[in-house]
């Protein structure tokens, strides 16, 4: 069965870009619009990898990562942070929250897929 990747991003454009890149690589893609929605989809879809944006309404990426890491059921899921923020502070906050790795937008689809394969067992 193909690997399921959850993408969390408030931008429809980004979600579609991710879907295109990931579906092309043979992943099953499930999507969420913000952190809270992400937690709902996480429970329903059991993804093997999560790719999340940082700047989102309701619950941002930091909050989302903390929630995932704080949940015994999901803490082992690799989370890649996908954001245009390339500054060290954001990256550090995401890492403190428990992000596995990060990718800077605009992303190269090949490298994105590569990164996902890299963190997924």
């Amino acid at each position, binding site marked *: 069965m193909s690997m399921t990747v959850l993408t969390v991003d408030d*931008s429809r454009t980004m979600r579609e870009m991710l879907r295109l890149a990931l579906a092309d690589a043979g992943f099953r893609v499930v999507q969420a619009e913000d952190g809270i929605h992400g937690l709902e989809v996480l429970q329903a879809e059991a993804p093997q990898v999560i790719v999340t944006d940082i700047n989102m309404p309701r619950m941002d990426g930091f909050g989302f990562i903390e929630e995932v890491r704080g949940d*015994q059921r999901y803490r082992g899921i690799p989370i890649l942070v996908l954001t245009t923020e390339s500054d060290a502070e954001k990256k550090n906050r995401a890492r403190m929250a428990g992000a596995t790795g*990060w990718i800077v937008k605009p992303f190269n689809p090949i490298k994105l897929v590569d990164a996902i394969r*890299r963190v997924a067992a």
Partner: protein
Amino acid sequence: MDALAAIRDVFFQECEEQLAELESGLLAMEGGDTDPETINAVFRAVHSIKGGAGAFSLEALIRFAHVFETALDEMRSGRLAASSDVLKIMLRAADVLADLVRAARADEDGQHPHAATLADELKAMSGQAGDSDETEEDWGDFEFQPMAAAMDAPEAAPAGPTGFKVTFKPRTDLYAKANEAALLLRELARVGTTEVELDAHDVPPLHEMDPEAAYLSWIITVTGDADEASIREVFEWVDGDCELTIEPIGGEAAGEDAGEAAFDLSALLARVQGDAPAEAAPEPEAPVAFEPIAEAPIAAPTPVVAAAPAPVTPPAAANEASADGPAGAGQRKSDAAAAGATIRVDLDRVDRLIDLVGELVINQAVLAQRVMEAGLARASAVAMGLDELEQLTREIQDSVMAIRAQPVKSVFQRMPRLVREVAAMTGKPVRLVTEGEGTEVDKTVIERLADPLTHMIRNAIDHGLESPEKRAAAGKPAEGVVRLSAAHRSGRIVIEVADDGGGINRERVKSIAIEKGLIGAEAALSDEEIDNLIFMPGFSTASEVSDISGRGVGMDVVRRSIQALGGRITITSRPGKGSTFTMSLPLTLAVLDGMVVSVEGQTLVAPITAIIETLQPKAEDVHSLGGHARVISIRGGFVPLIDVGMALGYRREPLPATQGVALLIEGEGGSRAALLCDAIQGQRQVVIKSLEANYRQVPGVAAATILGDGRVALILDIDTIVTVSRGDMRKAG
């Protein structure tokens, strides 16, 4: 359309939404909103536009959005105060951003006359590098190679030594972030040829072992093409969560200092099997460490693992263990929805559904009539079932109509920019207040509202509001207020455009109307009638046309477009206090409130919105003008009396006025007429069926409908009937 083009469309749709969000957020802040979520939303809007633009390499858009975003970030972090001046610049920047988005959409990503100026203003106020040299550098830093920039990969270092000795000791944190030592080793094996040596010295006896702690470390010799940078890149994400050293080594064979890290796996396994229940397996976060070794033939005493291409296969057992929770959850996934609380549906499909529901409503009415005619008792099971069916049909109809309904916000949100522009052109400070943006109405109504509303707002500022000096003299605040509101009232939507200006100058309006020959010199008009003269065709004059409200469009055109939507527009004005335009529009164009009348055995429907009153003509009020032309006197004024039967060709001789009933109607441009019919059957909501789509266009007929008895009834095109009859009348006269 290929997938990328489709995403591009999505991007631009989304941009529109974000631009609206941006503007309303900035306006809210200008109005004193200090909620941090507001500035966050504003920031996100620009941030998202920039992100998407990056993916499509829209350079001009990216650059401007970047400067804008940086300024907003300063504001968000409190380093830049959200003063009124700052917000004004931000609003203008939002306008420029909107222009850039539209240009990019039209494949004209490029220069904007004000982009550079505003970018400089934004930079100046947010302390971004200002002078042009630095600017270039600034933007150069912000390398937006589409689809190219990636994972912060450091630049490749020039090739040097023949190999590297990497010591890697993960900390507990590394596993807590779902990184896996095994995967890093696998990744490293892609960079070069690796020999992996496990150091298990720190593994404590099982009873002392913390299942979440990290005890293992590795010494990896990397040879081949690998350079230090690419090795570091492998560990980039775990930097800080492990102890990592990378030492270059000469061309010598690797792993010479191996041999000390003896790790007796079989002994450990024996201990595990011997005295630990299954769930007490050590290091559940990092069981990967054991697996490769167990799989490799070189188990216990051999310390060096020959590790060419992919020595560290991801262990299935570990995968299952860590994925236990989600896998369990996965079984429940079928009944939970995936993503998205909304779906996008092709409008044609919705319209098809609306059509079908229209048919259903008609069929239901036909059926009900048949049942009644069959003489079934009201309390019979069939009649009661029909009642329920009727109820359900109505609910379905309402729900389907609601699909086409949209909040007026989409048109309201275009107005702030218009107000800013007109305010700048006229030099009048203006504040726009909007209310009821969430009020919903049919999509087509919304689309066709934009032009009349634009015109009315322009008009309100240009003609309605006085100059700041006059306002000061009248004791009013310098800033004029234009209020745009929407509300649902008795099954219709009422939209008002109000200004707090000087009100209609009735003397002037009257003299213009006399001058234009619209009214007689000695006509005695009420204030209300004078105010409504501005809707007369030909009232708007060249001398009055200014750059702003002019453009050759008068209020008569506004009235006509509102009437074309089945709506009405009126004005009320109070001298010195301002004017209010009130538009009342139907919520949908699919059904119509009609007055059902009979003419020569035919059933016809007149739109209720056009009817002012119905009356029984008295012989003494009707005057013949010769031929078949007649007028009827209503409260001292004369209006043409038009026999609908004659106008549509149902009869050759006019019906004696006293035998019929007249509908006093107001047509295009406010002209009045009385339509003579044989009898009124009643008022009814009818489903509009296009005549053109099913037959062809017929003068005097706007559309058709199907009544409960199954007969087709024509819906009158009142304006055409009046115009045609007028022409006939002139010929006759």
